[in-house]
């Protein structure tokens, strides 16, 4: 931690003692969310999400592949993430960092566990299945990539169209059938700073946090959880955060749906 981070952490902790944050918002309040879909023409689907000053872009590409031998009647779905060097002075070029891999896998796990994409639905015939590749590009970092990422990937999937596949050829320009999305999941990420826990940390708050917890729900079940960093959480903390996560479901789902209706 740089000395500037250290000084700012002290200030953030002091503010939190009085129930305040760097920005004028509540402990369990999201920053402003703005979702734009179909921002890219060549991708099967895409979405850009602004969560405060955090900006992420999700692009969906679908390709036809041979099915795996252990899942002959299922297609594939995989989320990858890139912490681009344009997004922060802290990010460097090179192979995906453990943080990027964790981000991709947590977003992936939520969607998978929520049964949002039916992999059987991606089967074409005995020799061919669709593989859905979702790439999450972080364009500007200001904290909470997990929730911004989940919103972007869910929105991009919901607006994706399956290309035509005829005579062993994919026609990306001819597509009209939408990709079926069976369930909507939303995620809420909390961070613990000192002994206080807040929702949707920004970059400065993440620099001060000891623990992070992401909870993904579909409104009725907890679908995925991931704790990060070296701090600890009590069972009471976790149960409390699960309740908050459920209470945010409708608000976040509405954000995704409003895009679909446009």
């Amino acid at each position: 931690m740089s000395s500037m981070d250290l000084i700012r952490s002290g200030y953030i902790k002091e503010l939190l003692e009085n129930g305040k944050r760097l920005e004028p918002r509540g402990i369990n309040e999201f920053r402003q969310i703005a979702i734009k879909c179909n921002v890219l023409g060549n991708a099967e689907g895409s979405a850009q999400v602004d969560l405060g000053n955090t900006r992420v872009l999700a692009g969906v590409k679908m390709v036809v592949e041979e099915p795996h031998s252990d899942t002959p009647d299922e297609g594939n779905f995989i989320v990858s993430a890139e912490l681009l060097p344009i997004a922060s002075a802290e990010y460097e070029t090179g192979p995906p960092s453990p943080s990027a891999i964790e981000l991709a896998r947590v977003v992936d796990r939520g969607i998978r566990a929520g049964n949002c994409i039916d992999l059987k639905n991606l089967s074409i015939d005995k020799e061919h299945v669709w593989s859905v590749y979702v790439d999450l590009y972080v364009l500007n970092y200001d904290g909470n990539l997990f929730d911004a990422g989940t919103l972007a990937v869910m929105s991009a999937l919901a607006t994706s169209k399956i290309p035509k596949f005829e005579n062993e050829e994919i026609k990306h320009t001819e597509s009209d059938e939408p990709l079926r999305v069976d369930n909507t999941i939303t995620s809420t990420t909390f961070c613990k700073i000192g002994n206080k826990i807040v929702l949707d940390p920004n970059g400065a708050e993440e620099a001060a946090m000891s623990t992070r917890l992401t909870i993904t729900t579909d409104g009725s079940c907890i679908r995925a959880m991931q704790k990060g960093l070296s701090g600890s959480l009590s069972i009471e903390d976790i149960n409390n955060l699960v309740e908050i996560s459920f209470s945010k479901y409708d608000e976040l789902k509405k954000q995704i749906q409003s895009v679909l209706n446009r």
Partner: protein
Amino acid sequence: MSHANKPELIINGKRTDGRDFNELRQLKIEAGILKNAAGSAYLEWGNNKVLAAVYGPREVVPKHLTDSTKAIVKCRYSMAPFSSLSEHGRSGPNRRATEISKVIKEVFENVIILNDYPGSEIDIFIEILQGDGGTRTAGITAAAVALASAGIAIRDLVYAVSAAKIGENLVIDPHMLEDNYSDADMPVAVSPKNKEILLLQMDGGYTREELKKAFEMIFTAGEKITEVQKDSIRKLYESVSK
């Protein structure tokens, strides 16, 4: 998760290996079995076979990562190419192993008293020789013993175990088959002194009530795991004093 060819996992109220829902697989730990490491442990947990080794505190490589106020922790969780029943695994870290290594590292950053070792590095290596579900929790449980046997200052002897959901039932310590076809799975690492959660991952579908029950099962099972861990360390020092 829905599976078409889901095998029968619970028959007459018992699991496929005859266990009750709240029953752990047999757990054996032997501390101090690798001579070159500062600390080590070999663990057998059901059909899991795991080696954990600790090196350090030692000089930080590369040097620029050095923190003059505390030790840095590195962790490598790795599954051997021959560790699973399916085909030969590719060597080298994959996305899964990278993520698991990261969350395990974060567990031990909490437990090790880092300020006692400024400017140094502590390495934790977890090698899964044979995997049968629950390898990350087995790895953490083994690594905790390896750290203790290295004489490194730690706040607590952490344990880890998973709670899964099969149909309507919650079961502790799922094996591979249960893991593959479970309706939810939640590996957790706990600091037993204050019951604080150090690792928490989950996927599938838990209701809020099931989540609470899963934590209770984990805490109860943890008491037994802690006993086996402590015994292994006790035995190590008894053998030295002989």
